[in-house]
């Protein structure tokens, strides 16, 4: 599990867009020892599940169908199979949105939509998940549930998440990428985090407080 952090406009989303193949790039990028440029769009979709920051839907589909479309790359292209339906039910139950399955996607609340879209991405069943602000709009209860799902998956999958909540990230993630002004400044493990570097990255004073063996982060204006 990798957390991607940085202020607005620091290049986090651009980074994820490039990694997911949504944006052209120069340089060397390899997936599983192969040059990314050599990987077809279909194979890319089979390997990388991408949740963009803002998703939109302009047809009145129900939530179940929205999640089902995540299975497209595994279907024969003409029809979804029984198997796809079973996967979809499972994904919806995992993200606690199964009770919303018959509701129109566009009529759901922001947090519910986000959870449905998370279920949709997970339904792609890829090895790599790139999630741009997956926690936005989700209530605290479900944030914890969602991050627990990520933790269960992390043994088999690479999960890279753009996140703004520093305390939450430090508590749950083990590797951190910090962006500032379009540059990847640091790639650090949890033990390497230090308040001075963080203060420099975010432009605020960052301090750590330890209580009950748990690290808390406080921030204030410089």
């Amino acid at each position, binding site marked *: 599990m990798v957390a991607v952090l940085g202020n607005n406009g620091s290049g986090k989303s651009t980074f994820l867009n490039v990694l997911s193949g949504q944006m052209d790039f120069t340089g060397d990028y390899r997936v599983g020892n192969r040059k990314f440029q050599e990987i077809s769009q279909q194979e890319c979709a089979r390997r990388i599940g991408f949740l963009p920051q803002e998703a939109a839907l302009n047809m009145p589909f129900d939530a179940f169908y929205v999640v089902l479309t995540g299975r497209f790359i595994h279907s024969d*292209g003409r029809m979804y199979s029984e198997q796809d339906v079973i996967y979809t039910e499972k994904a919806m139950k995992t993200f606690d949105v199964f009770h919303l399955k018959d509701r129109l996607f566009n009529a759901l609340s922001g947090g519910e939509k986000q959870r449905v879209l998370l279920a949709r991405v997970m339904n792609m069943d890829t090895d790599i998940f790139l999630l741009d602000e997956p926690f936005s709009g989700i209530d605290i209860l479900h944030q914890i549930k969602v991050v627990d799902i990520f933790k269960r998956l992390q043994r088999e999958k690479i999960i890279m998440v753009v996140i703004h909540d520093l305390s939450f990230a430090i508590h749950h993630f083990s590797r951190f990428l910090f962006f500032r002004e379009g540059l990847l400044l640091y790639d650090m493990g949890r033990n390497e985090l230090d308040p001075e570097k963080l203060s420099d990255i975010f432009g605020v004073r960052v301090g750590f407080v330890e209580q009950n063996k748990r690290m808390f982060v406080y921030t204030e204006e410089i």
Partner: protein
Amino acid sequence: MRLILLAALLTAFIAAISAGAVKIDLFNMSEIERNIFLDVRLPRVVLAGLVGAALALSGVLFQYVMKNPLADSFTTGVSASSAMGAVIAIMLGLMPYIPLFALAGGLAGLCLVSRIASHRGRIQPITMLLAGIVLSTFASATISFMKFLSDDAVSSIIFWLMGGFQAATASKDMILFAVICLSFLMIRDDYLKLDILCFDDTTASSTGVDVNRLRKKLFFAAALLTAFSVGYAGIIGFVGLIIPHILRLGNFVKASYLLPASLIGGAAFMIATDLIARTILQEGQELPVGVITSSIGGVFFLYLLIKRRKELFYFN
């Protein structure tokens, strides 16, 4: 729901072949009546149905491409540029080649519009609509200019522009039927992709759909359908707008339901409209069918803008 649509189509068809300027007893026809029935009425009703189906389907396809419920062959300028092609054919006296000229005009217009609206290999829906409006205006102006230039062809141009099925023949029916089958075959394996195209482009392409390739294919199919409809029946507005919208309200939202339903619904609607157009006036006089669809369509367009603003907003 599909059964209701089929029943509507069947009812419209039966009503349309039994009513007309000349009363015909279907089960007991004289020689003249049989000629009227087989050479005039039946081809006309079939052409109306086929044109309705083609226009409704092309409307749906344009709406998928542009992610906008206001898109159809009219608003993208494809109708008008097809018409421009057809009017050139009329002016040159090449009546049998009208559909080909319409296709050339339509494709040229579509290429121009999609070229203008493409940015880094992606089509921008809003720019596309704007370019469509400009193209429509330009094509109308050109048509007016051509009318001004040619005195002898002007009445046939005006007559043809109003839209109608008077000139139906069995061979036109067959060609249009083949065109519809061809377009439908082109896209029948893409239902799931069409549904995914309703998401934003990033979501769609990261799900594994080649968005730009699919769009080009849809464009071509839609232009083909529009050009042949315009070539055979003139400009008949708004069918591609009204029918898909009503169907979506009737819960035909997945492409696998919406596309076949738009064929049937478009056909039923157009047969019924043509029936009204040729029977509402006394003594065998006819109202141009385009007048009826455009007036219904205009009111419907206003209704969309006023009552369903929220939904329009969702589409962006």
